[in-house]
């Protein structure tokens, strides 16, 4: 029996209040995106209305927006492929306690994850200008490894720790190579954890602003920057801006609903282990 700090009714009151506070701002923007221009900011607010979709159409066809959306999808995909290709073998090795320098490498990962963006953005900016990676999707996916790779290694290592070592020992005795052990035993067993890691990586890269702001201009602009662009217009089109915000929120909200349990597990594991 855990202690009861609140009666059951109180718990539900807190839960419902928290849910309303969390959800209302998003709901409100969704409503503005679906309202006629005249209703959007009416005081008192218009609560019931016939939804119109023209703001979404306008946001999507705004110059560069759909291209930026595609760029973000590509950055998330490439960034994740890189992080897993490089991170899974490293995580396997760092999961084994006898690996020399294990602790130092883990601390190094943590430091890399915690560096402030503008410390590394200027040198990378200069380098990218020189070698032609400035304003490219690949360049962005590469520089995102500064936080994606440590996070992936850290988390995958924690998921690998739950794989029974006896399985690997048995496979080893039957002559399996390290690569086979990783791909045939560890990866399948830890698959839900890997999926959670990929989703958390995607959320971070999808939402990233500071680095994208400095390292892209036009061709590789991400969807976050495209949304930011709506602030800059002389007369702000609030309907289109609200619609653009909803478009950028939707894919990640979809992930949150789809994989809530795994995301929660991934986040907790990353902090507890």
């Amino acid at each position, binding site marked *: 029996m855990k202690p009861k700090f609140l009666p059951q009714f109180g718990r539900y009151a*807190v839960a419902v209040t928290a849910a309303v506070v969390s959800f209302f701002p998003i709901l409100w923007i969704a409503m503005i995106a679906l309202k006629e221009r005249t209703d959007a900011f009416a005081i008192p607010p218009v609560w019931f209305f016939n939804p119109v979709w023209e703001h979404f159409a306008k946001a999507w066809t705004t110059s560069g927006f759909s291209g930026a959306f595609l760029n973000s999808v590509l950055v998330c995909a490439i960034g994740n492929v890189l992080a897993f290709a490089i991170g899974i073998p490293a995580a396997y090795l760092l999961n084994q306690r006898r690996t020399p320098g294990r602790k130092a490498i883990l601390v190094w990962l943590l430091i890399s994850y915690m560096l402030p963006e503008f410390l*590394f953005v200027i040198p990378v900016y200069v380098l990218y200008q020189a070698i032609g990676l400035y304003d490219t999707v690949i360049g962005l996916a590469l520089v995102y490894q500064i936080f994606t790779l440590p996070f992936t290694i850290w988390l995958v290592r924690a998921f690998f720790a739950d794989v029974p070592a006896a399985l690997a020992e048995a496979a080893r005795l039957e002559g399996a190579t390290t690569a086979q052990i990783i791909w045939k035993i560890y990866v399948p067993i830890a698959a839900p954890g890997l999926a959670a890691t990929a989703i958390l990586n995607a959320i971070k890269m999808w*939402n990233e602003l500071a680095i994208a702001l400095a390292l892209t201009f036009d061709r590789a602009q991400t969807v*976050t920057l495209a949304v930011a662009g709506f602030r800059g217009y002389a007369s702000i089109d609030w309907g289109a801006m609200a619609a653009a915000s909803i478009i950028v929120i939707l894919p990640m909200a979809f992930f949150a609903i789809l994989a809530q349990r795994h995301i929660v597990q991934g986040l907790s594991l990353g902090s507890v282990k």
Partner: protein
Amino acid sequence: MQRKAFSPYWLLVPALTVLALNTFYPVIYSVCLAFTDWNWGKTSNFVGVKNFISVLTKPQYRGAFLNTLVFATSAVVIETMLGLGLALAINGITRGAGLIRTILLLPLMVSGIAVSLVWKVLLDPTQGVINYFLSLVGIQGPAWLGTVPTAMPSIVMIDTWWQTAFTFIILSSALKGLPAEPFEAARLEGASAWQTFRHITLPMLKPVLITVIIFRTVDTLKVFDIIFGTTGGGPMRATEVVQTLAYQTAFKFHRFGESAAISVVFSVIILGLCLAYLRLDTEEGDAS
């Protein structure tokens, strides 16, 4: 021999290479840059510690560091306490817990820039729905993001809405993982809810709490998106923080040397905090 076969070190080579390229090159470059007056022109002169003196003495720069500290401290304290409170309250719920958790998770999925736009609309002094709600109970709402006294508290509030889910989720998982026996013993001895919390729950949660606090501290110190997206550092620099300052100094005024000095000083502060955290963590006894 056997041992060697078990640790194929080359598996680490790609990761260490990328990590080295991504950390050593930029860090060394930035440190060198911080001692120059480079402004994206052809020449770049060594100026000694001039930039560092500017960082430490210019009122504008000191103001940004101070604002960052104020923001991080308030946001971390509020988010940790709120997240812990929510975790304690909601963990006992049986029905609809999954749905509640999913809804609470939503703000965390939203990009900082979308968060900014959402709250700019909500907090608009004349057309915003927050001030409309306040007017219903007879309160004249302020221009939240537009006046010096309310701007920073508004940013803290926005961050609280955005990030409390993080502290809530982790503390809630940690609470679920606590063993039941100590609570049972406390109940048998007739401990009050507060005593149980103070002497059993809190000490057992301490390692996770430290982790949560350090993650939130680093994250809030590095705050950029929600300030860039709402106030841009205004009004009258009331919300200017280190990262917006470093960004503007480099990419608006092209004083790359000074910007690098700002980031170097800032990194040293963050690194110091991380090391302090690692010490705290190992003092706990079992370093995993």
